[in-house]
């Protein structure tokens, strides 16, 4: 059953002038004093700071957000970490209140900011299905009716009367998602829950959400870093940046614009003194740099260009300590292309340099970014310098009649050799 156009067009949520202020810093005697002041003067945060950058003691996580959601629409939200996506969903879900503005809506909301909220390890799978279902707003009758279906979907029938603390993490997530997938609110809010599962699980989730919106006319608000999922599911996408709406519209256009704004090439970062360098007490970055081995004078990185990643950091430990460095390369969509790890080595205090070569004829064309993680061992991460470099790889083709996008995340030059009766004429 498909919903007709007039029903699709009805506004189901109206968001007006939503801003959210967060006070930073620790709670202590000083904040007590401020609380008292606020209590007696009745003053909220200073709204005149809304247009300024975030400062040391406060941030505006959202700034004057306005949009409407139509009945039956799937609306996606993209933006880098800290852009305000999750805060916005939290406000619409009533987990936190806005500082200014008003949101009005119709219909019951269920929010899925996490799967398995409220699961209790000591309880059996059966008990947890009910507990979690009720927390998400389902009534007992609803769950009774769908119980078999939920268990089927989860694929853990055998263990349904075992306490969930004995479950493997995969079983746990499947059971948790099975409950969530059978929610039937008018409005569903989903935040990054896809991130927890494997590929099969993800496609199952997306299928379920498509079904909910197309066949049942549910409205879905959806945050994900997975651009493919966004393109696939959403009718409209909102790109957020630093708490503001940058762009709103058809997924293809908004996502492309977002990726373009994100993929500004960032080939080096240099910090002269440890005071201003990113890092922590153990690791302070001095320099990260990407050096392309250009073949010609064009200065463009293409698929043939070998790349060299260099980095320097100040290392500080109380006693000599092991250090490993892991370099991760991500596509612009956030998929990890590879992670490569240095051997473990013992170092004293001082400047540490590292280098990693990525050969030419390896990456496909596209935008990439690099994160560098410093670890003591595989279990202890000291510091991660995220998205510290980003670059674009341009396409280059010889002897090819194909002009479309080459498939695959990597594009190694593994020769394919053919044998057969040859003719010398063309």
């Amino acid at each position, binding site marked *: 059953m498909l919903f007709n156009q007039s029903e699709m067009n*009805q506004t189901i949520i109206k968001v007006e002038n939503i801003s959210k202020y967060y006070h930073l810093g620790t*709670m202590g005697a000083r904040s007590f004093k401020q609380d008292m002041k606020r209590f007696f003067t009745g003053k909220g945060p200073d709204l005149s700071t809304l247009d300024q950058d975030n400062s040391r003691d406060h941030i505006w996580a959202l700034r004057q957000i306005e949009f409407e959601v139509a009945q039956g629409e799937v609306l996606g939200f993209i933006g880098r970490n800290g852009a305000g996506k999750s805060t916005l969903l939290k*406000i619409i879900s*009533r*987990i*936190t*209140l806005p500082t200014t503005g008003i949101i009005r809506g119709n219909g019951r909301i269920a929010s899925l900011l996490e799967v398995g909220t409220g699961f209790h390890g000591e309880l059996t799978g059966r008990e947890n299905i009910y507990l979690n279902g009720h927390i998400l707003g389902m009534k007992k009758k609803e769950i009774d009716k769908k119980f078999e279906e939920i268990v089927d979907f989860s694929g853990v029938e055998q263990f349904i009367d075992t*306490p969930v603390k004995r479950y493997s993490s995969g079983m746990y997530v499947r059971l948790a998602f099975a409950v969530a997938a059978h929610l039937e609110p008018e409005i569903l809010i989903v935040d990054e829950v896809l991130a927890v599962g494997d590929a099969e699980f993800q496609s199952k989730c997306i299928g379920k959400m498509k079904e909910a919106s197309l066949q049942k006319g549910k409205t879905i608000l959806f945050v994900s870093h997975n651009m493919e999922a966004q393109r696939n599911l959403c009718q409209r996408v909102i790109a957020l940046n630093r708490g503001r709406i940058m762009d709103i519209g058809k997924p293809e256009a908004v996502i492309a614009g977002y990726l373009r704004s994100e993929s500004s090439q960032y080939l080096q970062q240099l910090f002269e003194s440890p005071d201003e360098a990113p890092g922590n007490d153990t690791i302070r970055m001095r320099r990260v740099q990407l050096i392309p081995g250009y073949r010609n004078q064009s200065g463009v990185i293409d698929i043939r260009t070998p790349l060299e990643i260099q980095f320097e950091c100040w290392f500080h430990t109380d006693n000599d300590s092991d250090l490993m460095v892991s370099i991760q390369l991500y596509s612009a969509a956030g998929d990890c292309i590879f992670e490569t790890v240095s051997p473990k080595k013992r170092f004293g205090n001082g400047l540490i340099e590292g280098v990693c070569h990525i050969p030419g004829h390896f990456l496909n064309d596209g935008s990439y970014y690099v994160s560098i993680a410093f670890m003591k061992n595989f279990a202890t991460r000291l510091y991660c310098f995220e998205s510290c470099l980003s670059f674009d790889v341009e396409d280059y083709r010889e002897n090819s009649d194909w002009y479309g996008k080459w498939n695959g995340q990597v594009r190694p030059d593994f020769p394919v050799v053919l044998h057969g009766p040859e003719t010398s004429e063309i």
Partner: protein
Amino acid sequence: METKTEWEWEIRPEENWFRLNLTGLWHYKDLLIRLVRRDIIASYQQTILGPAWVFLQPLFTTLVYFIIFNKIANISTDHVPPILFYLPGTLIWTYFSDCFIGVMYTFTQNAYIFNKVYFPRLIVPLSTLLFHSFRLSIQLVLFFIVYLFFLLSYHDVHPSVYILLFPLLVLMVAGFSMGCGLIISVFTARYRDLDNIMQFLLRLFMFAAPIVYPASIIPEKFRWFIWLNPLTPLIETFRTIFFTGGRIHTGYLLISFISTGLILLVGLLLFKKHEIKIMDVV
């Protein structure tokens, strides 16, 4: 684009005072029952004696009180057999303090849920209250067994007709602990110092109520002070209607009733007003 003028819900920067949203609460009654069930099941997992602990706890406490306060300190029990005298005080005090502490930690202990899903937060303290009420009702069975034994074998026990007040007494303890707990919960969420202060005050408060002594041993001059504690008339009336059969202090009982009602009301309003906003600072 067609727009509706009527909206089913709206979200504003401030919650309204005086809007308890009882229909919203009713929608989640299944959750309430399930949470009580969870607490009951979880509390006996991986224990050998299991539910028996519900009985053993007050029994041991009563025994310890009997030895320390009666045998060693020689504090009067108003001619009531000591075991019988201490038992109701122990039960009511345990009920009060368990409920109070449970409700007080509503935000801090459920932050992981409150940060992910919305439902009327009042469901959680209510479930705490119901869980401890369930334990109390089992313990009361124990009390009645002991009581019947003394009633049939011991001539100095005189029940009175006011025994019918008994359910009201339990309700008032529940209301008082819930009210205090709700008020404190809002403040502990923000200032953790209160945890320590409260644990300490609670211990003192136990001696400000006639649990291990009868109110009659307090000098006349200060007696009114002890009686203003909402718990005092409740415990004393409990003992009167079951053991001594004397007259009950209607005036103090009324004061206790009114102050409990007020505290509960303030607690509910304060909790409702802050239930969502508070999560920014937990």
